[in-house]
């Protein structure tokens, strides 16, 4: 499958954008709304005019219309043809290429089975659920054997459970078929879950590109860090194994219980939204509870960022404005900090492997 190279892409949004997408990888394009994620996808597809050059495997495709680029595109709003049945939708790309009827019917049957939608074959889109619609759209996209798959927030309008299931299926399909894929999302957890690499795009430029752990633990700019929840990063000196995949990590003056897989830990990231505050020590057993002093309060409606000094380290907690108004924490107040395990990410010393810790259910 092809390597995609974008060089000096310029248009109403992109500003001299450079990007290389490797053979068979799934690259996640992450960024705030209006950053240019979809525009970049449309440049690759050929929907949007642009300056510069797009190359598939070193061959420029700038003069090719979308219909000749052999690219699959999954739309956020599914874009199924409402007047065609599921079977006819899947067959559309094959009929457009003028393939033989027998070949078309074989391929459609194959896809109905692969995407597990055989029971829907003669239904019209109006009678399908969101998840079913996107499955049909995926089957339709894969039918003409595209070599590149472009996905524009394909699961963002689905409920979380369906979206998660489809993401996992998509990822395994993409790997099985060896497709080069570009996946646009503004959901940071989805970005970590899906991406072989992440590219953070801001104002039409690639701000940082790398494997997910690199983006999380070594954000080059505060914009990148903010996009992924501005985690507290702590360098760890040693880790002592505890039990059942847990270890106690010594990070500066903190000792934290973290997920542990038997390898040395380099850094840990603690998401501010996973740091809970209380005025009093709550007498339930709970790892990772520490006492500290509030040193700064930053109001960023609808949330408030509270910086707490714990020993020599500073931990940022994110609480809702509503909660903040209720508890009235002021600077130099003593508070208790509780860090839930599921909001901790671990970077191993040999950073060649990007271990994916437990994912959060909520963004």
């Amino acid at each position, binding site marked *: 499958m092809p390597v995609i190279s974008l060089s000096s892409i310029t248009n109403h949004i992109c500003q001299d954008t450079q990007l290389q997408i490797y053979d068979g990888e799934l690259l996640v394009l992450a960024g705030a709304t209006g950053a240019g994620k979809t525009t970049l996808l449309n440049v690759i597809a050929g929907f949007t005019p642009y300056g510069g050059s797009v190359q598939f495997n070193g061959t420029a495709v700038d003069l090719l219309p979308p*219909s000749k680029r052999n690219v699959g595109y999954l739309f956020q709003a599914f874009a199924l043809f409402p007047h065609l049945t599921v079977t006819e939708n899947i067959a559309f*790309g094959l009929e457009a290429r003028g393939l033989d009827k027998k070949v078309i019917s074989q391929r459609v049957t194959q896809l109905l089975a692969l995407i597990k939608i055989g029971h829907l074959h003669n239904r019209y889109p109006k009678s399908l659920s969101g998840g079913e619609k996107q499955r049909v759209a995926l089957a339709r996209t894969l039918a003409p054997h595209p070599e590149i798959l472009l996905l524009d927030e394909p699961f963002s309008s689905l409920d979380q459970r369906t979206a998660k299931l489809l993401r996992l299926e998509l990822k395994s399909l993409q790997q099985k078929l060896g497709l080069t894929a570009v996946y646009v999302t503004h959901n940071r957890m989805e970005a970590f879950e899906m991406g072989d690499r992440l590219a953070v795009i801001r104002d039409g430029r690639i701000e940082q590109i790398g494997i997910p752990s690199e983006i999380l633990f070594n954000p080059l700019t505060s914009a990148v860090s903010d996009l992924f929840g501005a985690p507290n990063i702590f360098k760890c000196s040693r880790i002592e194994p505890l039990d059942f995949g847990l270890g106690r990590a010594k990070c500066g003056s903190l000792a934290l219980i973290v997920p542990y897989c038997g390898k040395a830990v380099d850094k840990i990231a603690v998401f501010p939204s996973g740091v809970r505050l209380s005025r009093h020590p709550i007498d339930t057993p709970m790892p990772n509870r520490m006492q500290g002093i509030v040193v700064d309060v930053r109001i960023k409606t609808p949330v408030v960022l509270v910086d707490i000094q714990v020993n020599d380290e500073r931990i940022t907690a994110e609480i809702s404005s509503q909660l903040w108004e209720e508890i009235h924490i002021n600077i130099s107040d003593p508070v208790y900090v509780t860090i839930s395990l599921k909001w901790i990410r671990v970077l191993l010393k040999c950073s060649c492997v990007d271990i994916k810790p437990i994912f959060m259910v909520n963004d």
Partner: protein
Amino acid sequence: MNNQPRIHFLWGVVPVLTMLLLWETTARLQLIPGGIFFPPFTTVMAEVGDMLFCGVLIPNFMSSLGRVLVGFISGSVFGIGIGILMGWNERVHRWFSPIIGLLYPIPALGWLPVLMLWIGVNEMLPIAIIFICSFFPVLYNTLTGVRQVKPELINAARILGASDLFILKKVVLPLALPNIFTGLKLEAGMAWKVVVASEMVAIPTGIGSLMMRAESLVRLDIILVCLMILSMMCLLFERFFAFLEFKTTGKWR
């Protein structure tokens, strides 16, 4: 559940029967003064038989029907064709839209005196009027239908490898059908109204001229027969397109 359509049908028929009964009794009992101007329903029905028998009704009806069919079909075909072209190609749209915007507001019958001088009083005259009457509304409805196809669907078709012609045939046209049918349903009835009007004014054959001759003979029964035929034909044509619409788009809408 099985009774549902029958009850529905009854609710359509009962008011009509009541109205006919009321008509019949008021006319028979001469409740309205000047009975000669208000024949009872059964007399009108008997006149239908007479007219069929002496061969007045069929030829006049057929000549009106022929005019409606030729004028309406040609007007619709051109309307749909140019509507698609304008909806699909921005340049064509820019060219035609001001011209059509100026011509559209002129009532179809307003063309009658001009056309009488241009093409004379012959078979072509009512056909031309019906053509004008169907062409513009069908065109506008088609244009709207084509233009409201979501760009995303067209992009989806393009990326799947479809050529422009294929997209037009397989995506744009089928999705514009509901709008096209709206235009056809409206104009099929309108064509009958226009043909009668033009026959009344200028042409010596057809339902319209039959009505004018009946008027000069004070034959209200004949006039009422003609009006009833008109009403049935408008309804029939509209229902025919509603049926076609359901057949072609009912499954997916």
